[in-house]
Structure formats: C-alpha cells, structure tokens
C-alpha cells in the first residue's frame, strides 16, 4: 500500500467512527440547546437502540420493521424517563441535572445488563457484498450505511428545524425560553420533544453501527463520552458543528492511531481538542456573546 492509500484508509476508517460520534453529538446538542442539560445518558440511547434491534431481529422481525419498532421503543423509554426524572428536577442546578443524567445512565446500563447480560451481540450488515476497494483502501458496505445515515439524519434535523412547526418551536425555545412561552410554546413539552428526538437519533446511530462494532450493554459509555467531546468541539449549540466535530474527532483518532501511536491515540485526540479549545474557547462553531450587566 502506498502512503496515499494508507492515508485514505485512515480517513475512511475515521469517517465511519466519526459518523457515529456525530449522531451522538447531535443528540447532545439538541437536548442542550432546548433544556440546557448535558445529557450523559445519550450514549445509553444508542445502546438501547442497538439492543432492541438485536432482540427484534433475533425473534425474526424483518430489518425495516425492527428498525422502526426499535426507534419507537427507545423513544417511549426516553419519554418516560424525561417525564419521570428530568421534569421533576427542572429547577435543579445544571450540575445536579448532570448528576441525574449520570444516575440515569447508570440505571439504564444496569437494566441492560440484567436483560441482555454481559455478552456482546452481533448484527448482520444491512446489505451483503464484499468490501469495496477505493484507491487502494478498503471499506465495508456498512460504513457507507453509517456515513449515509449521518448525512440523511443531519439533513432531516436541519429540515425539521427550518421548516416544521415543532422545529421552529424548538428553535424559539433555544433563542429565548421566556418569549417562547409567551408565544404559547410550552418549554416542558419542548423538553420532552427534544429528549425523544435525541433518543430517536441515538437509537438509529446504535442500529447502523451495530454490525460494525457489536453490541454490548456498556457500549454507551464510550460513545457518550466521544459524542460529548464531539459536541463541545463543534460548539455545543450548532447542529452542523456537532456533525463536523464528530467527523473531525473520528478522523483525528484514526490518523493518530495510524501515523503516531496507537497507544497514545486517545491522548492525541484530547491534546488536539485542548489546543482547539485554547485557540477557540467557544469550540469550532461556537459564538461568544457579550454579557450584559
């Protein structure tokens, strides 16, 4: 393999993982924008989506049905959680809410452990067919599914924010909660909507990545962390930022592992992250507003 094709290989690998980080980051951003909460349970939504999918396929459901059902199931679970836990703590400080989401994530993980055990599960790729070779690099079809799904979901999210009533209401909530309430938009309904929407994004991310990564009860931990990093890297309030943050993180990790040191891979991506933050304290897409006294 020539250096060029090796580089291409690193980038392609990075984009696949980056696509998943991006989807998780998108969930972080939507919830944060609407409710101000950093939802550390976001990774668990991904795990739940993948687990439901594995279970449904296991009992013989056809793939499209399994996808739809899993998304709906995760949305219902998250809806209940939002209603039960987040809403009753709305007035708590941000740190307290963070701890609540940590507690929720622990509980969800524990329940997953009870239901599905510690063993990893496997899911067949969506489409059959051998790996493709592009310029000396190799890519499996499922990676294309991941990248494609990321693109479609980003487009869908942007479309929703731009053109639908719910999307506009969400955006109104992001800009000014008080004014939104005056306009008859209920922030608590929006919070529910944000959580459920993020749950759907997370669930889809889990399903599309399952054939590549296997599904374990604790996969949400790592994905949640990486998604959080990607979200902050992208500015924490920008939807395209989250996606670019996720893709960038994936590619940096892959290049770090390939070109520098696979052991220091995570260290390298965090050093780059810190440098980005020091140079642009508001993230790549962040805006620093002027405070008013």
């Amino acid at each position, binding site marked *: *393999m020539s250096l060029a094709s*090796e580089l291409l*290989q*690193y980038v*392609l*690998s990075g984009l*696949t*993982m980056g696509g998943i980080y991006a989807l998780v980051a998108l969930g972080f951003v939507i919830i944060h924008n609407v409710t101000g909460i950093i939802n550390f349970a976001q990774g668990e939504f991904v795990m739940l989506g993948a687990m439901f999918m594995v279970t449904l396929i296991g009992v013989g459901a056809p793939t499209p049905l399994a996808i739809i059902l899993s998304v709906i199931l995760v949305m219902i679970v998250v809806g209940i959680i939002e209603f039960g836990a987040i809403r009753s703590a709305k007035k708590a400080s941000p740190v307290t809410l963070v701890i609540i989401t940590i507690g929720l994530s622990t509980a969800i993980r524990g329940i997953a*452990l009870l239901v599905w*055990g*510690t*063993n*990893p599960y*496997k899911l067949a790729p969506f489409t059959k067919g051998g*790996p493709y070779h592009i310029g000396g690099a*190799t890519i*499996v079809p499922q990676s294309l599914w991941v990248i494609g799904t990321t693109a479609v979901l980003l487009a869908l999210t942007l479309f929703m924010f731009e053109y639908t009533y719910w999307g506009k209401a969400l955006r109104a909530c992001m800009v000014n909660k008080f004014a939104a309430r005056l306009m008859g938009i209920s922030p608590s309904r929006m919070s529910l909507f944000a959580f459920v929407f993020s749950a759907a994004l997370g669930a889809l991310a889990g399903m599309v*990545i399952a054939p*590549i*990564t*296997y599904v*374990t009860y*604790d*996969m949400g*931990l*790592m994905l949640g962390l990486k998604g959080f990093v990607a979200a902050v890297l992208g500015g924490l309030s920008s939807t395209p930022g989250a996606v670019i943050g996720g893709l960038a993180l994936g590619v940096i990790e*892959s*290049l770090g*592992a*390939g070109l520098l040191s*696979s*052991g220091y*891979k*995570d260290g390298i991506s965090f050093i780059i992250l810190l440098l980005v933050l020091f140079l642009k304290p508001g993230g790549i897409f962040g805006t620093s507003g002027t405070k008013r006294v």
Partner: protein
Amino acid sequence: MVRFKKMSAILVIVLIMGLLVAGCGGTKTETDKTTAETKEPYKIGAIFDISGKGSSLGIPERDTVNMIIDEVNKAGGINGHQIELVMLDNESDETKSALAARKLIEQGVLAIIGSSQSGTTLSTLEAIQKAEIPLVSAAASIKIVQPIADRKWVFKTAHSDALVTEKIITYLKSKAITKVAFASMNNAYGDSGLKEFTAAAAKGGVTIVAKEKFAPEDTDMTPQLTNINRAKPEAVICWAIPPSASSFTANYRTLDLKMPLIHSHGIGNKKFIELAGDAANGVIFPVGKLLVAEGLADTDPQKAVLVDYAKKFEAKYGARNTFGGHAWDALKVVLAALEKAGPDKVKIRDEIEKTQNFTGISGVFNMSPTDHNGLALDSMVIVEIDKGKWVLAK
C-alpha cells in the same frame, strides 16, 4: 443563629451515621455465630469480577463455583462438613476488590478464591498476606505468584502468560516463522502478553516487526492493521479478548491480509466465534484442553475430567469456556487441601503448596514452594478454528 442550627443538625447526622456503622459491626458478628445442627460448616470466600469490565470472566467463574459447591454439599460436604460459600462481586474495581478481601477475612473464611483479573487480584494481596489466609486466584499475571518470597499465601490456577507465549514461540518455530507483528489490547491482559511475548521472542529468535495497541472498547482496528501490513510480518499475533479480538479479526479479513493470524488464550469462549463469524475460521490459538476435550486422545489424563465438567456446565449455563475452568481448578485445589488439612489456614496453605498430580481443567497441577502455579507447557494445546468449531491444530 441559622448557622448554629445548621451545624448542630449536621452533627446529629454524623453521630447517627457513626452509630449506624458501629451498629452494623455489632450485628454482623452475631449473625456469624449461627451454629449448624451437626458439624459447623467450613466457610470459603470467593471474589469475582461479576459485573463491570471483567464480567465475561467473572460470570462463568461464579456459575462454576456455585455448581461445584452444590454438588459437594449434596454429596455430604468435606469430611462431613457442609461448605458455606461467601461470594462477593468486586465490580471489576481494584479498590472494591481490596475491600471485599478484608470483608471475607473478617467473616472468618478459611481460604479465598479469586479474583478474576490480575489487577483485582493484586490489589487484594496486601490484606491476604497480612491476614495469612490462603488465596487461589483465577487470574493470569505471573506477578500474582512472584516474587515468591512476598507471595507465601498466594496461588493461581490460570496459565501464566509466560507459558502461553512459550507455547506460541514453539509453534512459530515449528512453522519456521521468524518475523511477527504483535497487536495487543491496551489493558492489563494485553500489556502482560506484550511484555511476556517480547521477552520470549528475544529468547526464541523471533523478531517483532510491529507493535500495535487498541483500546478494549475500540471497534475499528483498521489503522493498526494498516500499519502492521506495512511492516510485512510472516504472522500476526493478537493478544485480546472479545469483542475487540473479534473486531480485530473481522477487520483483518476485510483488509484481506494473508498471513496466519494467531490469537491468545483470551478468545477461549464461543462468543469470539459468534461475533467474528466466518472471519474466525483459520484463527490459531494456544489454550487449555477444555475447548477440545472430546477430541483428545483417550489416554490423556485430563480427558475424563474435562468432558465431565464441560457436560455439566453446558447443561446449566451454556457454552463452556476456559475462565470457568480456572475457577474450577482454584476451588477444587482448595477443597482438596481442606479435606486433608481440616479447618486450619496454615495447614490448608501447606497442603495447597504440596498439590501434586492434581488433574484439573487447565492442566495437571504440580505446585511447589517455588511454583505457586504448577502448570507445565504440555497443559496447553494449539487450537484452530475450522468452520466455526474448535479443532486441534495440525
């Protein structure tokens, strides 16, 4: 004034908490004194990594131990004494493991088996050595039983990585392979393999042309494999457990690398094959004989024991794996010593050290004052995965 009330409220709570802790201590010792009708039961402790990262080891170990204890007690116990098992989950956490050991010691167990992983075992040793209580670990690292001077009370039943690497080097030599790449999972397991293999390779005349690592939670090892491919090794050795070992293998096949792929004994469970699917075919790895028990020659001294354990375990808990076997060995060694020595910790330890020709799952154990593991090279076999099945490699 407000603050005064605040402070006194806090103080009251502190007092209550203190009393609560003290109270727990009190009631605890009372319940310990439950007397058996006939003979007082022998109390044995176990610590396994039942939840957390090490759970794929800890769960079969727990199941195996429960199974044996049931069996032994139904058969009348040891010397007429029932066995009372106190099993604790250390959640794969070193600090909690250290606490668990102290808890067992306080409950007056005669011996302890566990933990499942090297780190969670090593963190208990301080308390074990001090309390002078025999411990038989199910974990791999050679550090658990060495330096022997500091490990008087500590034994282990899993194959040491040194033994496994030696087996691999012997295999490589038989195939005339001298240039290998080594990829390891970046945790204690992979690290120990890396260190031992580096040492063994230097001795055995094998050059390592590439060393790569991946995190246990990594799912894409393509970058590492790309680097390995560039170094053009004659074989690739991967030191990891599933799922990352499976991901590695799947990526390996996707990139269409042609060299033989050799894994470690960490893939000694069915899950590896399930996850890697077709990619697993052709993978070679050294492991205890349990996986290929039925295929062994009838003259093999272990065959009967292995087949029996495999049958019973699979009837109750699903596919066999070597980790349960480590717990089987640890518990059986302790029970055998207990039978000879009676409820005396010093004598139990001495008996464990004297274990000779003990036919276990991981091999035939011959312990000595300088060897607290007691396994020889012939306790392992090289296994190949063929059409999703384990077979003895030719």
